[in-house]
């Protein structure tokens, strides 16, 4: 029982540190993320520059720390879009039943049959590139997962005795939904939210890498890796270290999601 808890502790710590990076980057690095020191360009990681420096002498660690706010806020928007639209669709399908249920869930099937990245790219053609648009595009891809889960939870909870009792004692539909069905369906939804948060960070960095997200010189994580590609032969740290940070954050989100899922199951 001891091992899993260590994993959870490390995961929480990783997310806490990255959240602090986003809130108060100045506490973690004194270097400027945008203005470089040309004399110190392309230095390997050292005590002075933890993650080394890039081609114009910017401190890579400072760029990763200052970039966290873009990835985290983007992931928040994406998850909010998916959670809100998906849960609404799922609630609607699960509580209305009948033909409405069928229609909504067939629509969700269609969303599931198109790979997330292609759906996101279609939304980007529609909205154009940019940080917020990328977040919305990524969120669209998670609507289906949230809708399915919300529906199955609503259907499950609705059959329980206490919900029957609430209806029996004269509870109106929206009130019962809000007071009884929603709180009891929340556990698995929160677990999925944590998981989707990690997946959103992954997807946002991918779209950033492809060049649809933030504009240079914004230190967005995917963009950092894309910029580092030109120095693959000489400067391994430019691509390896920002990517390792992304992996750590996504792994941490997944770990936390699993422990929430286990404790509420």
């Amino acid at each position, binding site marked *: 029982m001891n091992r899993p808890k260590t994993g959870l502790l490390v995961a929480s710590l990783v997310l806490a540190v990255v959240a602090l990076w986003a809130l108060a980057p100045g506490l973690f690095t004194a270097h400027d993320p945008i203005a470089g020191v040309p004399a110190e360009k392309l230095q390997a990681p050292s005590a002075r520059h933890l993650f080394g420096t890039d081609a114009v002498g910017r401190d890579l660690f400072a760029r990763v720390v200052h970039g966290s706010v873009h990835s985290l806020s983007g992931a928040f928007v994406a998850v909010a879009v998916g959670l809100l639209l998906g849960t609404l669709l799922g609630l609607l399908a699960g509580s209305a039943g009948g033909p409405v249920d069928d229609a909504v869930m067939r629509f969700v099937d*269609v969303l599931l049959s198109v790979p997330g990245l292609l759906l996101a790219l279609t939304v980007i*053609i529609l909205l154009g590139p940019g940080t917020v648009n990328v977040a919305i595009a990524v969120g669209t891809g998670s609507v289906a997962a949230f809708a399915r889960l919300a529906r199955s939870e609503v259907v499950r909870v609705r059959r329980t005795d206490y919900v029957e009792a609430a209806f029996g004692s004269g509870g109106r539909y929206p009130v019962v939904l809000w007071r009884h069905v929603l709180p009891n369906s929340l556990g698995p939804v929160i677990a999925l939210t944590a998981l989707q948060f990690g997946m959103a960070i992954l997807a946002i960095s991918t779209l950033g890498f492809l060049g649809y997200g933030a504009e240079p010189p914004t230190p967005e994580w995917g963009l950092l890796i894309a910029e580092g590609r030109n120095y693959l032969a000489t400067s391994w740290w430019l691509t390896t270290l920002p990517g390792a940070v992304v992996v750590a954050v996504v792994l941490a989100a997944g770990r936390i999601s699993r422990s929430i899922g286990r404790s509420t199951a």
Partner: protein
Amino acid sequence: MARYLLRRTAQAAFVLWAAFTVAYVLLQLLPGDSILIKFQNPELGLSPRQIQEIRAYYGGDVSPLESYATTLLGFLRGGFGYSIDTGTPVVERLAEALPATAVLAGSGFLLAVLIAVVIAFAAGHSRTSWIRGALLAVPSLFVSVPVFWLGILLIQVFSFRLGLVPVIGGSALQQLVLPVLTLAVPIAAPIAQVLARSIDRVQAQAFVPVVAAKGASRWWILWRHVARNAALPALTVAGVTFGELIAGSVVTETVFGRNGIGRLTEQAVNAQDTPVMLAVVVLAAAVFVLVNFAVDVLFPVLDPRLRAVTG
């Protein structure tokens, strides 16, 4: 069985039609007129009448419903319209890009299944708890790695550090190794996860100790008895991951500079080439629907217990 096939076919056709419609509506919502953007450029010196003719050529001068119907009919006949970017038929561009991606995605999928089977069976066979734990943690690591970063990392290690795979040039096979590995890793993760869980479930069943009591070795039980029963859930997941192969090829082809459907998609997004994007989305949905259809139909063939239910 015939009724089941018929219902399943209708369902598949419906999902395809709906995917087409959703993508079509999304792409038609574009505020800008991509034809005007391209041809109204004063440098081209086109008169309004000529632009009108170009619009008619691309089918842009009819009502939205009419244009939807024409496009849908075109898709049914296998004509996907014309690329706005290059002016050539979308079918030609797809046909040009498809073979390379089919080779990449096909080999990627096979390697993914191989990796998944090795992980799941090693975990199922292992009695040392920390080795087992480490093996079972591999899939969560695999899904948490950005595909583009993995590709770059592989280039760095195998091409620049070890010099095993040439960066430029090299045989077709050499050029395929790293992209296939990159594509396979995220696909292997969900298959390995489900297969490992499924093996655990089957191993807990009563027939396993019976076979062991008869003197079968652990490998024999795992391979001959457990594997056959554990394969079905993994097959379902393998079908679901098929759609991700096309998405994965967008990133993989960009990182490795390969031509194919992924590259075509990226170019379509950059040029707001909606006919090409529509065709790619429908292609991905079609692959997904067809593969899952095949999986569903194969189920009763592989598992005699299911024949009575669906027949």
